[in-house]
C-alpha cells in the first residue's frame, strides 16, 4: 500500500513530540544555572534524536525548528539575540547530526548526540561573538564544550534507551507511516 503523505497518525505523533520537546526545554530552564553561561542539559535533543532515527530527517528538522519558533513566541523572545542564538545552534546541530547519521554511518546515537551538542554550542557562541563583536567569549568555549560532551553522552544514552523500547516503531507499524 502506498503510504499517504498526510498521515493523521504521523501528524499527531509529531505534534505530541514537538510539545514534548518544548515542555522538556521549559522544565530544563527551571534548573538553576551554575554560573557559566551556555551550560545546560539540552534534554530536548533526546526528542530530536528519536525523531531523526525513527521518522527521518525532514521530520527531525520540522520538530527542531518548530520547537525554536514556538518557544520564542511563548517567551516573547522572537527575533531577539537569544532567538538567533537558539536558531543557529539548532540548525548547526541538526545539520551535523544528519551528516553523521546519514553520510557517516559509523557512529551510534551517542556519537551523533555528542557531535550535535557540540555544534549547538559552537553555533551559539559564534552568534554571541557576532552580536557583542568580541572574541572574549571564546574563553568559555573549553568548559562549555566539556559540559556539552558530557550532557551529549547522557542525552544519547537516554535516546537509545527510548528507541530500544520501540515505542515509536510500534506506532509506525500499526498505522503504517
Amino acid at each position, binding site marked *: 500500500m502506498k503510504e499517504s503523505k498526510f498521515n493523521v497518525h504521523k501528524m499527531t505523533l509529531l505534534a505530541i513530540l514537538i510539545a514534548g520537546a518544548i515542555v522538556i526545554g521549559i522544565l530544563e530552564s527551571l534548573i538553576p*544555572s*551554575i*554560573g*557559566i*553561561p551556555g551550560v545546560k542539559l539540552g534534554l530536548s535533543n533526546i526528542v530530536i534524536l528519536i525523531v531523526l532515527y525513527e521518522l527521518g530527517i525532514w521530520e527531525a528538522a520540522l520538530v527542531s525548528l518548530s520547537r525554536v519558533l514556538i518557544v520564542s513566541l511563548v517567551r516573547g523572545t522572537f527575533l531577539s*539575540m*537569544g532567538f538567533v*542564538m537558539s536558531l543557529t545552534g539548532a540548525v548547526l546541530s541538526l545539520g551535523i547530526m544528519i551528516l553523521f547519521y546519514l553520510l557517516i554511518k*559509523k*557512529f*551510534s546515537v*551517542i*556519537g551523533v548526540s*555528542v*557531535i550535535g551538542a*557540540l555544534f549547538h554550542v559552537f553555533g551559539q557562541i559564534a552568534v*554571541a*561573538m557576532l*552580536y*557583542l*563583536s*568580541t*572574541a*572574549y*567569549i*571564546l*574563553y*568559555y*568555549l*573549553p*568548559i562549555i*564544550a*566539556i559540559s556539552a*560532551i558530557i550532557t551529549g*553522552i547522557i542525552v544519547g544514552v537516554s535516546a*537509545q534507551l527510548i528507541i530500544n523500547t520501540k515505542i515509536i516503531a510500534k506506532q509506525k507499524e500499526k498505522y503504517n507511516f
Partner: protein
Amino acid sequence: MDKKKLRNDFLLIVPLLLVAIIALIVILTHKTNKPLVAKVFVQSEVVQTIDLSDKTERDYTIKGVNGELIVHVHDGMIRVKESNCPHQDCVNQGDVKDTNHPIICAYNQVYIVIEGESSYDVEI
C-alpha cells in the same frame, strides 16, 4: 548495540574531550602579571574604564541595552552586584580578578573584561 559503532563513538568523544580539557587547563593556568584595568563594554563600546589597582570599595551603574547593572569593585576584584537579566549568570559568576574570565551579560549586551600587561590579545 553495535560494538563497532560504540568504539567509533569512543574514538570521537575521547579526543574531543582531551582537546577541551587541555584548552581549559591552558586558560586556567595562564596568569597575567598585573591585571590593571577593567573595561565595561555595552554593545562593543567602552562605557567605563575602571582602575583595579585602586583598592577602595565602590559601585558603578552601567546602562545596558535592556536595563541597568550595578558593578561592584573591591580589592582589585570586580563583580556584577545586581542586574535585571532573567538568568542572573553575570551575578552568579561572582568576583573576577584576572584576564581569563570575562563577565558577560547577554541580555543587556554588556561585557566586562580585565586587561593586563600580558593578557591575550584577542580581537575581531
